[in-house]
């Protein structure tokens, strides 16, 4: 073994971090998110000293619903990345295809992917843990719808950033949704969060879905207010994401970046 060759390969990878904030961010991103989520879960469980009511429903329900948000976001971003990786973007955008049509197509893909994934997780949760997600009842439909809408908004935002910053932003396709997880109160109620994070949480649609889910499981009635908040916020974020996408698409066409998205 020659150390100079080992050093050469080490150097080759360190060079990547020198100019890539996203790679640098990744070193700290996942441990920090894990620490936050598991820290808040621990605080929540500590309050009940192991006697948390509806323990299985809270956690498995939250996990299945979170996956819906994540799948719907990822499908949009990865569909765009597929075109980047296969150097097909130019072929698409010299055709009459409109950018909006491309986004709508990726939304269809996201619905297909999340339905497939949800089917598997719902059936497995029932077989393995006797957990029936449908105990949430009719509220399940608006919950899922809101999580899909939020996933789309994050997916379009991620796609926009990849379009603008190219390969440097690719990592966001797998990570951006998780940035919202600690403050979305997925596995614990908002009340567990510090006050400043509680304020931020109010402006995240997923927070209202998961708070609503817990209310339904605890038989506290249909969470109309939470759902109204979730729909309202999603409408604003989705519109903002689409407007930003169109704005950045114009900038990309002004700067000639479309040819370089994969670089």
């Amino acid at each position, binding site marked *: 073994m020659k150390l100079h060759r080992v050093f050469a390969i080490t150097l080759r990878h360190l060079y990547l971090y020198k100019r890539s904030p996203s790679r640098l961010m990744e070193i700290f991103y996942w441990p920090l998110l894990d620490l936050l989520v598991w820290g808040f879960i621990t605080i929540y469980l500590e309050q009940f000293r192991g006697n948390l009511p509806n323990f299985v429903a809270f956690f498995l329900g939250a996990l299945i619903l979170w996956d819906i948000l994540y799948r719907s976001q990822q499908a949009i971003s990865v569909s765009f990345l*597929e*075109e980047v990786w*296969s*150097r*097909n973007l*130019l*072929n*698409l*955008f*010299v*055709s*009459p*295809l*409109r950018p909006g049509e491309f986004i709508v197509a990726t939304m269809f893909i996201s619905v297909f992917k999340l339905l497939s994934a949800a089917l598997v997780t719902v059936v497995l949760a029932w077989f393995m843990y006797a957990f029936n997600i449908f105990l949430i009842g009719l509220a399940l439909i608006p919950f899922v719808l809101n999580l899909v809408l939020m996933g789309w908004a994050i997916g379009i935002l991620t796609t926009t950033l990849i379009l603008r910053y190219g390969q440097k932003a690719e990592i966001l396709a797998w990570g951006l949704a998780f940035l919202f997880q600690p403050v979305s109160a997925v596995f614990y109620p908002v009340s567990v969060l510090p006050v400043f994070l509680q304020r931020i949480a109010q402006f995240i649609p997923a927070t209202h879905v998961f708070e609503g889910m817990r209310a339904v499981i605890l038989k506290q009635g249909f969470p109309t207010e939470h759902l109204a908040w979730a729909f309202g916020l999603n409408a604003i974020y989705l519109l903002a994401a689409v407007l930003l996408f169109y704005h950045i698409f*114009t900038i990309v*066409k*002004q*700067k*000639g970046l*479309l*040819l370089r998205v994969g670089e």
Partner: protein
Amino acid sequence: MAAVVVDVKGLTKRFNDLIAVNQVSFEIYQGEILGLLGPNGAGKTTMIQMLLGLLIPTDGVIKILGMDLGRNREAILSQVNFSSAYVAMPYSLTVIENLTVFARLYGIRKSKAKIEALLKTFEMETMRTKLTGTLSSGQITRLCLAKALLNDPKILFLDEPTVSLDPDMADKTRHLLKGLRNRESLTILYTSHNMREMEEMCDRILFLNKGHIIAIGTPKELLERFGKENLEEVFLKVAREKEEP
């Protein structure tokens, strides 16, 4: 006289301090094959991107098929097409799947018959179910050319279309393109670094350097103007003038 199908006036593209294309004006006539020639960094790619609506010009007007490109993108792009040796197709799709996707994008009616005809033209009938990723670079180029002819374009933008083809397939492709031009008045904007090919294919050649048009004319006119024996010598003269202080 043939109709003008591409009308470019005062086309300029500025990237901060760099002027990539500077006040360029020219026309392409129906059924004409216009070659775009110039050294690296001359502005060819920038110009093609603007003509395809991928890049917004800083100044100037592009009219294609009588319509302003900025305002009629969709109507224009449904009647033109593009192929480049530097653009691929999804590798994980088969040949037939890729062509089917693009046939749908262009709204082709009776797409199956059209695809089969193109597969035959490019001698790819046996490859229809092959994954694109398993094709050779020459076969991918043929697939891209087949894609470019799916919508029976009125104007074809070809960026080094024969660069990865073997001499036999390159010759067949040139004959095919010339045949299409002769039979269907197809207009072609053609770039290549193969000077013999440019002389053989192009009715006129537009020489671009440092974002300006240096010369435009038939290959014969260019040779006379620069006092050279062939197009390669003309190219070298222009490219090396660029290097002089």
